[in-house]
């Protein structure tokens, strides 16, 4: 025998089709999302006079916080090639736990809310362990968590809303910074500027922090590396299990925070809150260009994606479009943007 060699691997196939360079396609994707956001704003401003106002802007920002916070967590998980279906249930559980800590245990609100957030973190830890140590597919692991967290939330509240939490519980969700109120001639308070709601500040700070983490930190680089090629990352010394776990814990913690914010806004803890929110979170990430195959995604994209969803809802509401039609339209938008993503990634 002269040689024993396997067949040579095929020469890397030519990238055919697609006349645009990758950079151009990335820009196209960014502008597709951002452009559609601008188009939405223009259209709604023309069709409804109440749309383009400071007040409504703050309302939208407030409505978008929950989608954006969950979307930021979802983005990190999806970049590693995973998925987190449990966040809608986890936020309900976290909010309920925080409320019960105040009402049943008499804890101060900040500590109770911290416990709520940690409840979300714990759910994230469990998701991470199920995925990395027990090697369950992320879809299944977080599907299980979705059912379990919701079940626990319903169980500990007896499926009833927890109310009578006191004014301080509502501060986080309803308070605002730089609120300007003048007393009018008639003696009634006149809101000159509604202020920036605390949840909006929270959303912006966390988005900036996570964007910094993804773009500039070693941890962020490792998150992309795991999603791009987990085996290559492992053989380069990346702690793949640790990095993967981290993204689930981040997602769970953000779900916990979202739960506290939402329940605070209502000053009531609803165990049925947040149903299907995980799908909004995933949709905002995907609209923003995050690839479900992993390795690709940005916080800025997800931010735009969550505003696309939020503004669609708000604008359609203002134009009197029924909730059913809204679902149809949002569904179509998701399909359209993911299709553009497919075009971008087609080889």
């Amino acid at each position, binding site marked *: 025998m*002269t040689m024993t060699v396997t067949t040579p691997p095929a020469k890397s196939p030519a990238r055919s089709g697609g006349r645009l360079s990758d950079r151009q396609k990335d820009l196209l994707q960014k502008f597709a999302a951002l452009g559609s956001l601008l188009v939405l704003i223009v259209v709604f401003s023309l069709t409804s006079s109440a749309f383009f106002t400071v007040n409504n802007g703050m309302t939208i920002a407030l409505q978008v916080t929950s989608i954006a916070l969950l979307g930021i967590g979802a983005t990190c998980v999806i970049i590693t090639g995973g998925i987190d279906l449990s966040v809608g249930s986890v936020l309900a559980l976290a909010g309920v736990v925080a409320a019960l800590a105040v009402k049943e245990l008499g804890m101060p609100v900040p500590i109770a809310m911290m416990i709520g957030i940690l409840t979300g973190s714990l759910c994230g830890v469990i998701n991470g362990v199920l995925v990395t140590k027990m090697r369950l597919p992320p879809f299944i692991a977080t599907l299980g968590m979705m059912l379990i967290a919701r079940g626990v939330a319903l169980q500990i509240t007896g499926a009833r809303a927890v109310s009578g939490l006191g004014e301080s519980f509502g501060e986080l969700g309803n308070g605002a910074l730089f609120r300007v109120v003048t007393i009018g001639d008639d003696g009634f308070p006149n809101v000159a500027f509604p202020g920036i709601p605390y949840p909006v500040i929270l959303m912006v700070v966390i988005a900036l922090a996570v964007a910094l983490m993804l773009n*500039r930190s*070693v941890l962020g680089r490792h998150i992309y590396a795991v999603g791009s090629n987990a085996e290559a*990352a492992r053989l380069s010394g990346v702690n793949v299990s640790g990095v993967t776990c981290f993204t689930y814990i981040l997602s769970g913690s953000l779900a916990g925070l979202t739960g506290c914010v939402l329940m605070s806004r209502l000053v009531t803890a609803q165990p049925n809150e947040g149903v299907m929110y995980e799908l909004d979170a995933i949709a905002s990430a995907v609209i923003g260009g995050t690839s479900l195959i992993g390795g690709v995604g940005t916080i800025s994209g997800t931010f735009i994606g969550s505003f696309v969803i939020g503004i669609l809802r708000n604008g359609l509401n203002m134009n009197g479009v029924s909730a059913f039609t809204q679902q149809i339209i949002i569904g179509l938008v998701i399909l359209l943007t993911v299709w553009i993503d497919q075009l971008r990634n087609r080889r």
Partner: protein
Amino acid sequence: MGYGQTAGEQPRAPQSAAQGEPLLALENITKEFPGVKALQGVSFNLRRHEVHAVCGENGAGKSTLMKIISGVFPPTSGRIVYKGQPRQFASPLEAEAVGIAIIHQELNLVPHLSVAENIYLAREPRRGFLIDRRKLRADAKACLDRLGVAVDPDRLVRELSVAQCQMVEIAKALSLNAEVLIMDEPTSSLTEQETRLLFKVIHDLKAAGVGIIYISHRLDEMAEIVDRVTVLRDGRYVATDDFAMTSVDEIVARMVGRSLEEKFPERTSRPTSDVILAVRGLTRNGVFSDIDFELRRGEILGFAGLMGAGRTEVARAIFGADAIDAGTVTLEGRQLVIRSPRDAIAAGLAYLSEDRKAQGLAVKMPVDANMTLANMDEVSNRFGLIDFAKHAKAAREYIDLLSIKTPSIKQPVRLLSGGNQQKIIIGKWLFRKSRVLFFDEPTRGIDVGAKFAIYKIMDELAAEGIGVVLISSELPEILGMTDRVCVFHHGRITGVLETARTSQEEIMHYASGYGRPDSRH
């Protein structure tokens, strides 16, 4: 095994190749990929009643040529004439439809379907909307009987051996009434007995008028079945001969083309007696056992052996990618405790995988991110934030050092050629200041010119005192680059040879498990 057999010792197959118009002719075929000319002006023809072997080293263009014939992609230029008519196949389905079938080395069967369902996949006999199961089974049985293979058509493919799967693939090709059958390394995973059966089937097909293109590295087997042989080298046509009129030596000479000295750089590093890496009694149950070797400063140590002999597995275990059951690894006098690749990397070991895309590179990420991935601490501050100035400087430094051709440091690595990808992986480990590098098939699928560059880098590393282990299935590469060779057979090292005083034959002898050549008879 067929070691040492030559054409002269084997009974020749009856020469039944009909002369006259070829069944299939390729004229002046050229195929270009971005940055690579895979084929340049290759001509080839196949007659009925003929087994025509295509030989060449890795990267010679055999696979590309077969993909053009079977319609996977079109040639950049050139003509395909099939049964006297010029043809262009837009897809493998079109080629199949006119009777050109290919049996890939990595078999294309659906494991969870039965043999019969696989043979008639997407062509199931129907009765109305439903599959006619009885006819499906009967037709499949007829196909298998024609081959003389005793495989139950109702068995699931995942329960079959590799050889049986191969027979199912052949049966599928027959059911297509294939007139041209391409076999890519059909015997690489077969036992000798299974190979016999395959050869009998090939004889029968040949007698029935099928033209067979046979790709194999096992020149020794070819004598039994091959009528003509075409040699390709570096994407160019070299020669076509009647197998009876040539010899294995002549074919090898044509495949290699140049003498070894020209293919490999002059070695500048000199082995010393200073041991960098010592491995003692390394065992992974059921995979390899009692592996002992020493790597000395300045030398390149080769790991030779057949596929599956345990070379890659040993390297991966030393690197912590797979667990070991016993044994010690000592690096520069310190005994290492390695539980994961992270431990090995921290200690100064590096493993360059044989499968670059699956295990070596984060292909969606840019050049700079891949280059620094194993040593992020060096380019970040104590808060874990990346210092992008240092990051870019590191990437540029190794791009220059290794002459990596890339439009920018931000280019995604999947868009680079194989040679440049390999250099990025080397750069990654050099930036990590690795002390010992395991190169696992570093030149697989790489252009000839880039191969030379990789060899030169390996020599320079050894000269700088970095330990280099070269795992290779290509014996010329082992002979051309190493100072000593560990030969593996069935998970053991059967011999450690001085490269200067050994030969391909001696290495193959140890690799086949015969022990010392003089104790052979």
